[in-house]
């Protein structure tokens, strides 16, 4: 497996090298991405990736933590089975199906909805739509890890809170959340890693327009999405190499996020086990 990881770095970087050298530092600071003029500045694409992921997190984090708390603390026993199945099934839906449904079934609804508050520039395929779709895709990941983290909270702390006469919501606020903050942070970062790398669904609903815009209802693009939509190994070689360069950047970012997230999750679980 290490071999695969190292192999990914070496082979993709060497493929992308000519384009990276051609663009130099401009690869990270320029925001024009054009195969016609052979100008490759990835800033707008990096921006798109970050914005869609952040939108996704803003939506997914409260939802996932809520569902995880519900499943562990509030759920009637009879409902727990169906709830877990629901999360499993949501995780099993292929990315491309999310994209298909988002694009062909909800495009018009979302577009008219956005236009009521964001003006006529708003589009049904935009940063925001991509963020919403990705949010539901990373929900299962965050939920399942958060559930594990909450389950690892020492029973004694929770019982103590109950014994002091806390209501259920107070137990959650005073006993469960403080002990699991670090673990939940890790879970959120793992979700972020997924969101950054999410490709096909974003490629279908992000709007395919390379631009930096503060208005999230306008169409945009992300690194993974532009690779999926335009990489085919043919035509302008420089363009292909630049796309491969994007792959390298994306790989580096997601690996960094994942490594940090794993360390945070492992550490918090070890600390809780020590406390129990």
């Amino acid at each position, binding site marked *: *497996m290490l071999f695969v*990881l190292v*192999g*990914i770095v070496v082979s*993709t970087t060497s*493929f992308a090298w000519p384009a990276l050298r051609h663009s130099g530092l401009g690869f990270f600071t320029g925001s024009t991405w054009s195969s016609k003029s052979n100008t490759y500045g990835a800033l707008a694409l990096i921006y798109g990736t970050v914005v869609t992921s952040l939108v996704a997190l803003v939506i997914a984090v*409260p*939802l*996932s*933590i*809520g*569902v995880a708390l*519900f499943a*562990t*603390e*509030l759920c*009637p*026993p009879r409902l727990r089975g169906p709830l877990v*199945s629901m999360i*499993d*099934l*949501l995780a*099993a839906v*292929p*990315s*491309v*199906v999310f*994209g*298909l*449904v988002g694009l*062909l*079934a*909800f495009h018009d609804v979302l577009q008219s909805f956005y236009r009521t508050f964001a003006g006529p520039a708003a589009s049904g395929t935009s940063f925001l739509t991509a963020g919403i779709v990705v949010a539901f895709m990373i929900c299962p990941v965050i939920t399942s890890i958060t559930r594990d983290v909450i*389950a690892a909270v020492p*029973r004694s702390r929770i*019982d103590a809170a*109950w014994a002091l*006469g806390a*209501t*259920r*919501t*107070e*137990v*959650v*606020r005073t006993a469960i959340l403080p002990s699991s903050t670090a673990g939940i942070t890790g879970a959120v970062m793992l979700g972020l890693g997924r969101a950054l*790398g999410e*490709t096909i669904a974003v490629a279908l609903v992000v709007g395919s327009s390379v631009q930096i815009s503060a208005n999230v209802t306008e169409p945009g693009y992300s690194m*993974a999405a532009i690779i*999926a939509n335009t990489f*085919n*190994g043919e035509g302008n070689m420089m363009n292909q190499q630049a796309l*491969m360069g994007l*792959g390298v950047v*994306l*790989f580096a970012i*997601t*690996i960094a996020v*994942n*490594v940090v997230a*794993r360390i945070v999750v492992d550490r918090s679980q070890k600390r809780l086990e020590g406390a129990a």
Partner: protein
Amino acid sequence: MTAGAHSLEPTAPAGGFTPILDAETRRDVRRRTVSGRRRVFDRSGRFVLWATVIVTAIPLTAIIVVLIAKGAHLLNWHFFTGDIPAVTGQSSQGCADISEAFRAKYGMDCSPPRPAMGPAIIGTLLSTGIAALIAIPLGILGAVYLNEFSPRARLARTIRFFSDVMTGVPSIVMGMFIYTVWVVRLGTDGRSAFAAALALACLMLPIVVRTSEEMLRTVPDELRHAGLALGGRRWHGIVRIVLPTALPGLTSGAILAVVRAAGETAPVLFTIGITLTPNVSPTGGNTTLAQQIYNGAKSGDRLANELAWGAALTLVLVVFILTAIARFATSRFTRSLEG
């Protein structure tokens, strides 16, 4: 850890705990001891939790409803077996402007092409199947090594850590990796079900390792000790006792990895090529359901969209059934260990 054990409600007390007061009295006690403001806070907290569950249920319901509404009427025997019709743009109109007599005279077939996905189903089975053949044995062997042998705990921990990190590598990067080491070497001929299977196997491997390891860890040590006590070798114990005990769990892990691979589009896009006719060989251009959905969704053509809806419904059905089987296997496994 049932919710009832910690609440004041009289629901299924766990661990032999018997409620001292009856339900009505406890509710009464509670009403007096909890102030109004706290009660409102508690109620609103519960309400928020319920709301998150309902909001999360919306997309799944919406996807299922939309897929059935748009795809159900397309599914028939021809859809599963016929060749994929070429999407030309005019295909949905047929040749309405040509007169009936002219068509009959020259034997022109003007019926609009019927959507079908036969080759994509074959391609999906082929690429996912090869990927499973590569990744599942390797992954289970790796898990056995990590859990049963791993001479140095530190090494095992490092491998475990990297397989976790590898699960987070974007699938499109896996596709690009296989593209550079396989397709570039072999030219366009390198695009095949086998190349796609390599990319999918890279994705499946860490999933199989991690889930199998979890399952092996739940096999009680007493069983291993019993094997050794009977004079068996370590390998005998693993092959005849540990693996059969963990089999349902291993199966479910493997199925979940297959589910993930079958639905993946990104790593397949530039490794598999394309075909509209069935190709049962691991070499040569091929296609998958996921790739067809992607192509169909991008196109504005009605026929292309129909192809995408039908393929999506087929794929989701398969994936849901496999997930259900995996869950069933897991629950049987945990129950058999408890019993």
